Each structure stands twice: as structure tokens, then as C-alpha cells.
């Protein structure tokens, strides 16, 4: 097994941290964009780009409520995203065992 076998959507520092942070929430819970940004200390633009990649892969969903300055975006890991993190973690464990 090589590093190529790791899910490339998750196998990037920022996206790995995003998915691991959201996975620490209970099933079905979502986190606001601002809290996630505070926790990960990423710039808004950087965070948005990584969230898009994860959303395109079906690993998370985002929902916006309100308008203008009062708008709030909430992000949640999907079942598919949680399963992908489990698969990634198992693949990483196998890879490290083989090193």
C-alpha cells in the first residue's frame, strides 16, 4: 500500500483538519463557518475553496440562512463524508503499519 491509495480529497492538511473537526460533532450536527474558521485559523478564501472540494465530493453539506451581513452558513459532514474519513483512517493505519 502506498500514499497514493489515500483519498486525495481528504489527504491535504487543511481538508484533513476540516473533516476531522466536523467529525468530532455528534451525527447530524452542523458548525457555523465562522466557528470553523476560528478553530482552524484559515483565511475565509482558503477555507471556502477546501469546503467546495469536500462539498463537490459529497463529503459535506452547507446551508445558508438569512441575508447580507446577518447571513449564517452552517457546515455539516455527510454520512458519506464520515465513512470516507473512516476509510481514510484505516488506510492510513495500514500504511503506517507497513512502514
Amino acid at each position, binding site marked *: 500500500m502506498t500514499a497514493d491509495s489515500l483519498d486525495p480529497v481528504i489527504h491535504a492538511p487543511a481538508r484533513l483538519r476540516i473533516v476531522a473537526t466536523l467529525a468530532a460533532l455528534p451525527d*447530524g450536527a*452542523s458548525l457555523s463557518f465562522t*466557528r470553523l474558521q476560528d478553530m482552524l485559523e484559515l483565511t475565509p478564501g482558503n477555507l471556502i*475553496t477546501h469546503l467546495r472540494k469536500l*462539498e463537490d465530493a459529497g463529503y459535506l453539506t*452547507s446551508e445558508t440562512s438569512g441575508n447580507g451581513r446577518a447571513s449564517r452558513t452552517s457546515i455539516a459532514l455527510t454520512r458519506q463524508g464520515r465513512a470516507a474519513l473512516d476509510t481514510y483512517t484505516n488506510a492510513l493505519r495500514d500504511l503506517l503499519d507497513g512502514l
Partner: protein
Amino acid sequence: MPGTHDIDQTPKADDGDGLDPREAARLLAQTEREARREFNLTPPWIATAMAAVILVAYGALWLSTRGQHPYQGPSLGVVGLVYAAVAVSIAVSVKVYRRATAGVSGPSVRQQQAEGVAIVVSFVLGSPVLQGALKHYGASDAIVYGVIPAAAPLIIVGTTTLGIAASKADWPQFGAALAVVIAGVVAAFVGPSGAWLAAGIGLFIAVLGYAAADALRRRRVPLRA
């Protein structure tokens, strides 16, 4: 992403090229630990502080009533100290809860709020109603101001929490709630002054035990680099 169109979207996005698996494992473990700590409603320091407050408050109640014949109840000063300790504990708990759940939404948050309401209602109503009824029917001060206020909250709140923990399969919480119920049962049979001591020691052990079990559970990570 909807709602974020007004934010700069020209990032310096990193990708996984060159990310060493060992570094990825370290990053994953560290992020999980930090996230669990951020979302933790009962951090170890607050549980330890609560246990100390419980021991001091119940110890003061026991010392205040020890050797009373007939039993008259704790002094007003001690009762004031206990109320102050309860008020501070509630204020700190609310602050920690708000910090941990800031930005978090969804069914799990609503469930936690409902659980909190159930526990508060059982605490606020359970013992005073029993005390009022017993006083009304002529029970002695030893029962009304000793055994019942020491033992009843533990049994009532403990069984409420036991049900909540069982429904979530939260075994550390289940064990702590069971210990609280047992302490309440013991407190009911050791006399009006001894009831405060039994309740205090039981609560102290339950809170510290829960904090230790919860800390161990949260420290477990899926892999270590």
C-alpha cells in the same frame, strides 16, 4: 458556497502532494484531540472544581448539623454558602456550555438542551415537593430538613440522568448516575446529619469518576503517528 460569495476567494489552497503519511496521522490525531476539547461540555477542570465544591458544601452541611439532638437543620450561614456555591457552579456551567456549543446547531444540540431541562426540573421540583408534603403531614425536622434534602435530589436527579445516559449508551455517564443514586439510597438510611456526609462523598466520587472516564474516552484517537 452559498452565503459566502462576498468573501475573497483567491486562496493559496494546499493539496496533499508531498504530505507524509506520518505527518497526516499526527495532524489527524492532533485535530481530533483539539476538536473534542473545544466541543467538550464537561472539561476535566470544571468536573474537578465541581467535585471540590461539592465536598466543601456537603462537608459544611454535615459539620453544621453534626451532634444536633434534636435535629434542627444546618445554620443559615452554611445554607447561604451552599446556595452561593450552587449559583457559581450554574454560572460557570452555563458559560462553558455556551462556549462549547457556539456555532453548533442541529438535533443533537436541541437534545442536549432538552436533557438539561429534564435534569433542572427534576432537581428544582423533586426534593422541595417531597419536603413540603412531608412537612404538611407532620414529619419531623430530621426528615424534612435532613434526610430528604440530602437524599432525594440524588435519587431523583440520579435516576433522571440514568435514563438519559441509557438512551444514549453513554456508559461513563450511566456509571456516574448509578453511583449518585446509590449514594442517595445510602444517605436515606444514615440519619439526618450523616445523610449530608454520605451524599457529599457519593457525589464527589461520582463526579471525579465521570471526569476520569470521560477524559480517558476523549483521549482515545483512531491512530497515533
